[in-house]
């Protein structure tokens, strides 16, 4: 059974058309990440799924049931917000039990679920504390716990890690991945961070300007992007784009080469002047100018390259992607 089906969903705010004909499916137990630059409509899409915004047209099905007119609390979803959105006047336990009390669940059931969720998230020592007495990471775990206790058909995460610092973000990312394995639940996760998308997703939905650009597994999108936007958005450092004319002396197309596919070669086709070198220990990122185009090369290991040095880069032609003027991928 599919956990979520969207059929030609549109959303407009007045004259602004925010979501355009979104059609997609989320399978049972799947981890789907919506990714895109800010303003692409991914958070709006999540709100439409949650029922916090009404779709202007189109059909939303959760667990095989059409929910266009069902209020958020009855859609069988739970949501984790970017700002945690914990109830400041309730303890951790109160935050986690509020929705269950609203559903009139029996007391023993509520206690059992809270015990299970707090064990899973290591929240047991904090159950009687208030949100203001917790650190950022703990608050985010409470927010996740509040979602878990509801045992929803679908989890919705709205950029849950963007308020955490880098180290905590990585830990929490792994925790969420573990949680997904342990609960075997369907999850939708919104982020603008392509690392989170690549590491967490079973399936990535790339959005731009309210339109779905491409849907697929992380590696499918990485190895086989449908257009220049997807190619440039996924991967860090991002793909280099150079006009075809620079290499072949003719042609209107754009050539895309991933930084890791460039290598140093004395008779390579790209003559470059190094403008900056990032030495990361394991890798060396060389940012260089080919004529007036910036090119990033990711070289494995450590290299003694100085700024201002003249280099030549080569690449395997089967690793290069070609895009036409409209940004569509050419075979």
């Amino acid at each position, binding site marked *: 059974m599919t956990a979520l089906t969207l059929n030609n969903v549109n959303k407009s705010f007045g004259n602004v058309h925010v979501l355009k004909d979104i059609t997609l499916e989320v399978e049972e137990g799947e981890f789907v990440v919506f990714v895109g630059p800010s303003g692409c409509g991914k958070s709006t899409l999540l709100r439409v799924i949650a029922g916090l915004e009404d779709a202007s047209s189109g059909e939303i099905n959760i667990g095989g049931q059409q929910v266009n007119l069902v209020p958020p*609390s009855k859609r069988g979803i739970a949501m984790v917000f970017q*700002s945690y959105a914990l109830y*400041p006047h309730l303890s951790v336990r109160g935050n986690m039990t509020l929705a269950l009390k609203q559903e009139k669940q029996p007391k023993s059931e509520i206690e059992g679920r809270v015990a299970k969720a707090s064990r899973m998230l290591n929240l047991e020592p904090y159950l009687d504390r208030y949100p203001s007495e917790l650190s950022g990471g703990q608050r985010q775990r409470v927010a996740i716990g509040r979602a878990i206790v509801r045992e929803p058909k679908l989890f919705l995460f709205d950029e849950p890690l963007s308020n955490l610092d880098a180290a905590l973000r990585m830990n929490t990312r792994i925790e969420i991945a573990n949680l997904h394995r342990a609960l075997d639940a369907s999850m939708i996760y919104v982020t603008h961070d392509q690392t989170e998308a690549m590491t967490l997703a079973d399936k990535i939905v790339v959005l731009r300007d309210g339109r779905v650009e491409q849907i697929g597994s992380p590696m499918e999108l990485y190895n086989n992007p449908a257009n220049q936007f997807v190619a440039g958005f996924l991967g860090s450092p991002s793909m280099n784009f150079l006009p075809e004319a620079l290499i072949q002396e003719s042609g209107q197309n754009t050539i895309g080469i991933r930084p890791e596919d460039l290598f140093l070669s004395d008779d390579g086709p790209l003559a470059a002047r190094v403008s900056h070198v990032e030495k990361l220990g394991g890798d060396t990122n060389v940012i260089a100018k080919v004529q007036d185009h910036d090119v990033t090369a990711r070289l494995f290991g450590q290299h003694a390259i100085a700024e201002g040095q003249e280099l030549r880069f080569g690449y395997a032609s089967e690793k290069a992607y070609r895009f036409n003027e409209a940004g569509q991928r050419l075979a």
Partner: protein
Amino acid sequence: MNKARHNPLNMVAMHGALILYTLIALFPVFVILINSFKSRRAIFREPLALPNADSFSMIGYETVMKQGDFFLYFQNSMIVTVASLSFILLFGAMAAYALSEYQFKGNLIMGLYLALGIMIPIRIGTVAILEMMVATGLVNSLWALILVYTAQGLPLAVFILSEFMRQVSDDLKNAGRIDGLSEYTIFFRLVLPLVRPAMATVAVFNMIPIWNDLWFPLILAPAEETKTLTLGSQVFIGQFVTDWNAVLSALSMAILPVLVLYVIFSRQLIRGITSGAVK
């Protein structure tokens, strides 16, 4: 850190200015208080002297207690002020929430219409209000005053509170909706506690003019059993003779409850600011 805040000279100047302002503000209150404990002759001979064994007198307080039903006036003032404030805060907050949270046709027009009241003094409509009160039979009842003061306070309350309500995190309200809370529960349990500082501000702004008002009690409720404290004190001020002892004593006693209410609200104000909200 701000350098100016650590410069001792600036500190002295800053505190000096604040202390000076406090003294200026408290001076009339101080004069009222000391003179209320003095005999009539001492008040006029040395208005700024503290009461001593010679000049000390409780005559003012005795007059106030004997003449007129001071405790009834007091009670009336208290009922009118507290009831008006409650209505202003309740209806003002609800209107502000609707205006800031829901998108509906005429939202902006409605907001402007409600704010218009700030610019038009309610006293201009006194005659019409009096006619309305006569027609509804509310003259000489405390309800007449409560209704008028609520109407008078609402525009500013809606204006201030809607601005604050816009700042309450949308995520928090949405979390409540997903958890199945009704819009009323979201309003009372999640939003109101977070705008408590603004509520306290509105309460303080409205409390003092209501407590001190002479105009509407005189016109709408001058009967003996509905007199407010301010109106009741006027019996001691005559065209030719004024019983200053009694006036000063009545005023001294009238200051107390306002002070108590103010302390309560300002503590709320500070607690509201320091309590952690969303993050």
